[in-house]
């Protein structure tokens, strides 16, 4: 799957990875709906419009749960016949397709047949994410997916964290940005291994990109992996990378209502770092309100107030990281013990047979 956005195929670049994919997608582009009468439009709901020979009407009275969004391709020939199960609105006489019991066409009128799919659209990504997660578990790694809007201070926080953890833990970093290796360069300056993934036109990292980056990064067992996602408070929320936790970073120079404006990300995260708190005296940012908004979206969200530049809250953050690292290491050792016991059992059985 090409999991980057738009026509960014082949634009994803992972450092140290020569680009010669035999990758041959072609995307015919139609960027607007142009109707026969020349009007160009996009579709707000509720809406009502009509084409020659093809009427439909969304009156906006649907309740959630029975709402039914229809996408017609608007390229119908005026005389084209449809084999939809066609319904008429009892009052307005409007036509509605797909209200038949099967919510689709009457079977038997054509050679059409129904194929059950029942698959998660993100299934492929989730498979890769499960692979990454297994790999992290086997290597005792504590992996975090750091998400925020651009400019929240993610990279500065990372650099500071690496410096403070230097003598206690090994840290490796995957840096996601659309372009440049500036951030990976900043991380490498601290001495920590880092690899940059340029997503090209993509707006998020996906699990496959992270898997590829891991192969090249080859981080040490029992280490901390920080995946700095593309600065974007929307899309990265949907893509599991196999991490233990998503950590959302919000800086106090942003609006305190961001958790309400971008609820998906705050819902997906387990920890929120409220960064740049050293600037609070110069701002009208209401910390308690911000935390309250964030917990409306995600009642379980843990919150820490930090300043990467002045050092506030860093002890709490580092303690949280050390606890996660310890947990991952213990889990790996237990798993290893389990495997050793299993080998011993099998060898004993084999010996008994010989």
């Amino acid at each position, binding site marked *: 799957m090409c999991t980057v956005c738009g026509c960014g195929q082949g634009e994803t670049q992972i450092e140290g990875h020569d680009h010669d994919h035999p990758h041959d997608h072609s995307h015919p582009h139609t960027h607007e709906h142009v109707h026969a009468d020349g009007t160009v439009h*996009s579709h707000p709901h509720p809406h009502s419009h009509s084409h020659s020979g093809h009427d439909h009407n969304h009156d906006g009275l649907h309740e959630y749960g029975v709402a*039914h969004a229809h996408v017609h391709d608007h390229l119908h020939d005026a005389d084209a016949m449809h084999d939809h199960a066609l319904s008429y609105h009892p009052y307005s006489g409007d036509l509605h397709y797909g209200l038949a019991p099967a919510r689709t066409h009457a079977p038997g009128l054509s050679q059409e047949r129904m194929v059950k799919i029942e698959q998660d*659209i993100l299934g492929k990504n989730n498979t890769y994410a499960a692979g990454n997660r297994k790999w992290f578990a086997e290597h005792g790694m504590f992996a975090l997916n750091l998400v925020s809007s651009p400019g929240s201070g993610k990279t500065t926080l990372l650099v500071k964290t690496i410096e403070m953890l230097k003598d206690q833990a090994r840290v490796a970093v995957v840096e996601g940005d659309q372009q440049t290796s500036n951030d990976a360069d900043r991380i490498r300056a601290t001495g920590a291994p880092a690899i940059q993934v340029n997503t090209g036109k993509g707006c998020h990292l996906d699990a496959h990109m992270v898997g590829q980056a891991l192969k090249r990064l080859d981080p040490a067992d029992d280490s901390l992996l920080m995946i700095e996602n593309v600065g974007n408070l929307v899309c990265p929320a949907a893509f599991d990378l196999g991490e233990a936790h998503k950590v959302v970073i919000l800086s106090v120079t942003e609006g305190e209502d961001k958790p309400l404006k971008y609820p998906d990300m705050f819902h997906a995260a387990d920890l929120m770092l409220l960064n740049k708190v050293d600037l609070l005296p110069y701002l009208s940012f209401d910390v308690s309100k911000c935390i309250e908004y964030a917990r409306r979206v995600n009642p379980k969200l843990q919150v820490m107030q930090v300043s990467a530049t002045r050092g506030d809250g860093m002890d709490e953050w580092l303690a949280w990281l050390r606890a996660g690292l310890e947990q991952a290491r213990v889990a790996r050792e237990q798993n290893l013990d389990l495997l050793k016991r299993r080998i011993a059992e099998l060898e004993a059985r084999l010996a008994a047979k010989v």
Partner: protein
Amino acid sequence: MHEMSLAEGILQIVEDAAAKQGFKRVTEVRLEIGVLSGVEIEALSFCLEVVLKGSVADGARVDLQHIPGRGYCLGCGETVPVKALYDACPHCGSYQVQATGGTEMRVKDLLVE
């Protein structure tokens, strides 16, 4: 903008099914999209139109069904309807509501020839 990735994911699911089941044309793709899944329906529809062109599902109708949001209110101990992740419980007004349904995004079935 990740709707484009989702559209690519849908196309891949359709193409995999076509390879396995040997159908030549898809006339309708039925999707179930939870209202809490963070998917912008208009954007997804637009992206699908672009992505499906030239594929086995070129010109296929896309039927998007909303799955209503549900949450578990810690205060009431009940499952309640949720329209947005920041919604309060309709019974007690508390925000201690954990989303339990409506976050899915699935290809339900295809109508093929």
